[in-house]
């Protein structure tokens, strides 16, 4: 079964990836710092305050979240993850994107070869529907198709 959501492409791009979902604010520094410091290209969420994502792999996944929170290093962290090839395949926001996540996605797009498609304004229904492991297809116009694996 597929469900389609329409958002706004902040950084346009097309990608298909399995979802990982954070229902609460995503603390970028707390989530990435442990893996980046260990120079891991497969970043595992290290934020103990995020029960949805703690200890789950974020790299190569369609990261579904309301928005990011926390330190203003957030954009640099995303930029670093992108440059290392450890970033999520896409960042999909149910709410309007925040300034730190936007900075990270834009820095990755302009200053690294590894752009991270970012779509915001996907709505609360998106975050209610998408579950870890579902296949998420992101189109450059901000269309996000979520498949649950069932016919």
């Amino acid at each position: 079964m597929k469900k389609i959501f329409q958002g706004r492409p902040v950084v346009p791009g097309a990608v298909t990836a399995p979802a990982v979902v954070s229902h609460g604010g995503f603390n970028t520094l707390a989530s990435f710092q442990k893996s980046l410091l260990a120079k891991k290209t497969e970043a595992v969420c290290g934020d103990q305050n995020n029960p949805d994502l703690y200890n789950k792999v974020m790299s190569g996944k369609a990261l579904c979240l309301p928005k990011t929170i926390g330190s203003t290093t957030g954009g640099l962290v995303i930029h670093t993850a992108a440059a290392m090839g450890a970033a999520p395949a896409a960042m999909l926001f149910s709410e309007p994107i925040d300034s730190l996540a936007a900075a990270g996605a834009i820095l990755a797009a302009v200053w690294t070869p590894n752009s991270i498609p970012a779509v915001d304004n996907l709505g609360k229904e998106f975050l209610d529907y998408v579950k870890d492991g579902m296949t998420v297809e992101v189109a450059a116009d901000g269309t996000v198709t979520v498949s649950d694996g069932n016919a």
Partner: protein
Amino acid sequence: MDTKNGGYTPAMALTPEEQDILNGSQGEVMAKILKTLAMYGDTFGADKFIPIEGPGHLVTSFGISVMSATFDLMDELINAGVKAQQPFTVDPRPLDYDNVPCNLLQKIVFNVMYSKQAPYEEQLKKMGLKDSNAFTCTCYMDEVGNTPKKGDVLSWSESSAVVYANSVLGARCNRNSAFMDIFGAILGKVPNFDLTTDEGRRAKWVIEVKTSKKPEAQVLGSAIGLKVMEDVPYIRGLTKFLGTELNSETKAYCKDMGAASASNGAVGLYHIEGLTPEAVELGDSLIREDAQVYVIDDAELERVKKSYPVIWKNPDAKPKLCFIGCPHLSIGQLKEWTVRLENALKASGVSKVKIKTVLTAAPDVLEAFKKTPEYPRLLATGARLSYICPLMYMNNPMCKGMPVITNSNKLRTYTSARYYTDDEIAARVAGKETAK
């Protein structure tokens, strides 16, 4: 770049000069800087660029070896001959072997982790760093001197500094990320949106403080941040505890409350009825018509405090280190802690702290504090002073496993450090067990 304007046509209005820069009149790197800031502005509906009025402040003070992308980008900027238009300040240094306890293994890891610290500081100097004392998260302290005036537009990052500049000083700055801070300082302009606009500074939340006593700043800020996330709160009910004067004591309270709200959530600006400059000037007109209400009473603060996870391997472990000062302490707070520690030691019948205790402040603040009568008294308690960033210290994998306690909700949020209130911290470092 592949096309004349970097493959990007901004929606926001550009002046002819800005359009020329985007087209490459000042080189490819300046074009990329302008493109980045324009994309950033377009994302948030900016109408135009506006000039900044004060020096910049950068969050990125640490030369962590893994951040090669950062060093490469800094080199790209330096090689292009660009630099900040005014001398800027930057967050605290990550290392202080002289004053912060560190065993051999930890030191080895620190030396590897921050092996790029010296070359990175050279990069900062080339980009326009103010001076070698410019490393602090509280650049707005009088002793440091990067203190904006009401209405000044800024290109700052560091969440605790941004929320302080906006809320307590009435400056105008968005919660910029690393690199957006230096890009704005180089261009001398930032995109005009959200917290640089009158409408963006209006409150979407009314916080009704109905506690029986003055709330612990760090827990109140945490509760607010967790609830409102990045929205602007208008806080009522605090002046009965704080008064209506922005003095050194209330500024320190606002600093710590704001830092907790910015790290536990993403608050970039708050108003306190009857206290902060825009609330005093504009009152209820700052509150949006559709504002939500959040009531904070004693039970709510207790609920929030109890929600903090303890991630020590042994929750009953005896603390080995205590950090006080994240964000960095003011000179007034250093004096207060001197008295608080003296009283706690006296109550415990001991002369020295029983847990290694480090109080952190800006280098310029520490220099000023050393000239006060409280300085030798603080040293006599056994506590130490440092300019370090406790968060950077705790990033060391060899430090993560240590049972560290702190009065900082920000440090708690980002590390394994365990939060206690000021009074609980004082009692514990004096050797008294308090409630877990």
